[in-house]
């Protein structure tokens, strides 16, 4: 699903690279956590994957496409297969929760009824079925996070990228968010989560640790046992 070969990336005017010689493979169906202190390059790595930044060196492949060779006109196509949950949510203020979620499929030119139906469905899934017509900015942080996740999931993406999805939430709410991500994963979505929240790092999941733009550790999910459990769960779901 994702392959990085010796990828480096430096922001214009920065004195050191945000990513430095990163080589990494994330397979289809994986749940991968990107850990590391603030400034390690987690967000930058995610931004590479949905074409918000371009690598300054190395090769990035997403879903078999070489992003360096991608024509700008093809970028929307790539993004439509990726759900992104931004750290700052990037919701439209002054627009309803439903509008915000609908936007992601609307830009694909779906029929209006289908757009509405799917948006409502996903919002019910994340527990916001009763707040469809509220303005997004009037919701609590945890609720906004859910709207952001709903917008990412509504396109049924093959790949879900989340940047600090439990950033400012208490443990209970963070757990709720994690469950949403796990549900998406169980349904077959590849999930990559950037976080420095220890609560998220506790589970049986692969953790790639970044520091100063470099991969310093890559700990696979252990126990084949739990992988078997996951498969069983998938069949049920």
């Amino acid at each position, binding site marked *: 699903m994702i392959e990085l070969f010796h990828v480096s990336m430096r922001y214009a005017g920065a004195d050191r690279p945000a990513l430095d010689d990163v080589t990494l493979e994330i397979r289809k169906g994986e749940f991968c956590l990107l850990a590391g202190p603030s400034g390690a390059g987690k967000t930058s790595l995610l931004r590479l994957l949905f074409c918000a930044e371009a690598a300054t060196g190395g090769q990035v492949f997403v879903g078999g496409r070489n992003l360096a060779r991608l024509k700008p006109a093809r970028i*929307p196509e790539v*993004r*439509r297969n990726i759900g*992104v949950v931004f750290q700052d949510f990037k919701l*439209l203020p002054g627009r309803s929760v439903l509008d915000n979620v609908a*936007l992601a499929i*609307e*830009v694909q*030119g779906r029929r209006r009824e289908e757009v509405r139906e799917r948006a409502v469905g996903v919002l019910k899934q994340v527990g916001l079925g009763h707040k469809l017509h509220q303005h997004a900015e009037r919701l609590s942080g945890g609720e906004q996070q859910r709207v952001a996740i709903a917008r990412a999931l509504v*396109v049924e993406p093959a790949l879900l990228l989340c940047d600090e999805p439990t950033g400012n939430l208490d443990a209970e709410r963070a757990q709720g968010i994690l469950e949403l991500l796990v549900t998406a994963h169980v349904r077959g979505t590849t999930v990559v989560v950037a976080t420095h929240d220890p609560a998220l790092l506790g589970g049986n999941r692969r953790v790639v640790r970044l520091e100063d733009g470099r991969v310093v550790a890559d700990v696979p999910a252990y126990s084949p046992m739990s992988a078997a459990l996951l498969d069983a769960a998938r069949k049920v779901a």
Partner: protein
Amino acid sequence: MSATALVTSMLRHGGRSVRSGGLPFFFAMLMTALGAFSIGAYATLLVNFARVASTVGESVALVMFLNVDSASAADELRARAALMPDVREALLVTPEDALARARRGLGDAGRALEGAAGLRMPWVVEVTPRFDLGGSTDREALAQRLQALPGVDEVMHPAGEVKRIDALMRLLHGAGVFLGVLIALVVIVVVSNATKLTVLQRREEIAIMKLVGATDLFVQTPLVLAGLVQGLVGAALGLGALALAHASLAGMVKVALSGALGVFILAPMPAWLWGALLVGGAILGVVGAALSVRRFLRV
């Protein structure tokens, strides 16, 4: 993915652009209306001026003096003149009539001609040229062509005042074209500015739309449609105002100017110009919006 869904969705976003356009949007529309009204009013004046000028211009005829002897030869030349392009009418004047006219023209001195036996006037043809709006009827050329006919002695054409009218018409036309270009530029600038403000105001929304996979076309089309609305609706409003103004002025002008010139009716501008101004407004709106979209939509 269906094309109609895509289009309705873009239309909805266009509607949002229109609504979020606010004051600059309506200012652009107003300027377009004002522009269409001004051009239309000027064109109406020009059309009516041209009508008056053509009455004057056509009343000044060219005079061909023939050196033929028979009435049939003279009439054949008259017929040939009448068939020329740019000629509206050709009238034959017999030598007797010509003499009578000459006498009248000379007044008292004309009596001297009375006894003058053996004085023979030539056959004469009076040629009335067409007078068109563009002033493109070239009287000099017409005179030369008439002169070239066999049996024509001399062609007299009172060039002075006609030339002055022609020149004035050309000047007014040139000024009209200049005015039109100027107004077109103003419309492009204000629509482009309104679009720029909309883009800046909706920058965040546009950025998010692109992040979730909107194509450039999807983002740009609604903005260009909003430009189209500014141009088209603006022009329609301006032309509507012009039609109203024309209807209310026509009556007054008819009363004020009829008499000396017969019944004077304030003519409207030609139908094609109404259509052209409407289409022109739409095109300018699209161009203005597209310019801004190209410049400011790099998100």
